[in-house]
């Protein structure tokens, strides 16, 4: 294993992570909800009457975030390493898998681990493992 010192950014990672944890924590304390992005979004597909407003507001906040961030700090546009077809397949897998497994990086990873849920710890270990194997296959085997 070789460390990528050029891209390693411990301070922005740690402070960005702390803000994510603060948002997730306040979501629990104020709204009594788990800030799992896939769960919040999936509740809108299709919308359930009486349960739409807070979900839509949270998603709107996420959509507005890059514009707000760009006011205080330069924000690079995302660089996708894969083409449109791969992204479409990956998007399908992410959406389908996150719902079947009832959570993603935020729901199981951040909130689940924060509340010491065994179920979420197992889910996080599972998706970390298959993600690492996938990147290994894409970058080092099929390249």
């Amino acid at each position, binding site marked *: 294993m070789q460390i990528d010192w050029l891209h390693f950014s411990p301070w922005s990672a740690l402070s960005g992570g702390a803000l994510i944890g603060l948002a997730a924590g306040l979501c629990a304390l104020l*709204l009594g909800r788990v800030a799992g992005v896939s769960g919040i979004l999936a509740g809108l597909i299709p919308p359930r009457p009486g349960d739409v407003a807070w979900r839509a507001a949270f998603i709107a906040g996420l959509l507005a975030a890059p514009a707000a961030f760009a006011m205080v700090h330069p924000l690079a546009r995302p660089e996708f390493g894969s083409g449109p077809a791969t992204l479409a397949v990956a998007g399908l*897998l*992410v959406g389908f898998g996150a719902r079947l497994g009832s959570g993603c990086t935020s729901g199981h990873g951040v909130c689940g681990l924060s509340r010491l849920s065994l179920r979420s710890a197992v889910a996080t270990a599972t998706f970390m493992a298959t993600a690492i194997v996938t*990147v290994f296959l894409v970058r080092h085997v099929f390249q």
Partner: protein
Amino acid sequence: MTASKRSLIPSFALGLLFGFGLCLSGMTQPPKVQGFLDIAGLWDPSLAFVMGGAVGIGMLAFFLSRRLERSLLGEPFSFSGDNGVDAQLLIGSAIFGVGWGLSGVCPGPAIVNLGLFDAKAAIFAAAMAAGMGLEKLFALRAHIKQPEEES
């Protein structure tokens, strides 16, 4: 005022804060995420620090929430027990991980990047929404129980 309306402004602010954190952390850059997952290549450990920062603060909040009967805005807590591990959890998480590794994008950053009006981000987000809809149909047909609110 209904509970849902009362939580409108806090929800927006929390989404904004969450997305702000994602931008600062580097999670919105797919190569950065894949650099963390690529342990056999040049490995960028940054995302471990994102997780550490998030779970560190999160633990404190979830610990505090245990001392409350209801949330600070008067809502019931929608998270409680641990439902145990089953095949559905393992298979779903495994599929999610393949998509995450393939693209370097998970649902939060997918929506944040959509806010930048990026074409590739839009393709990913549309496919992700379709995947969620497909899962709902699949779950209905296979009579799979869907947890009301976990993630």
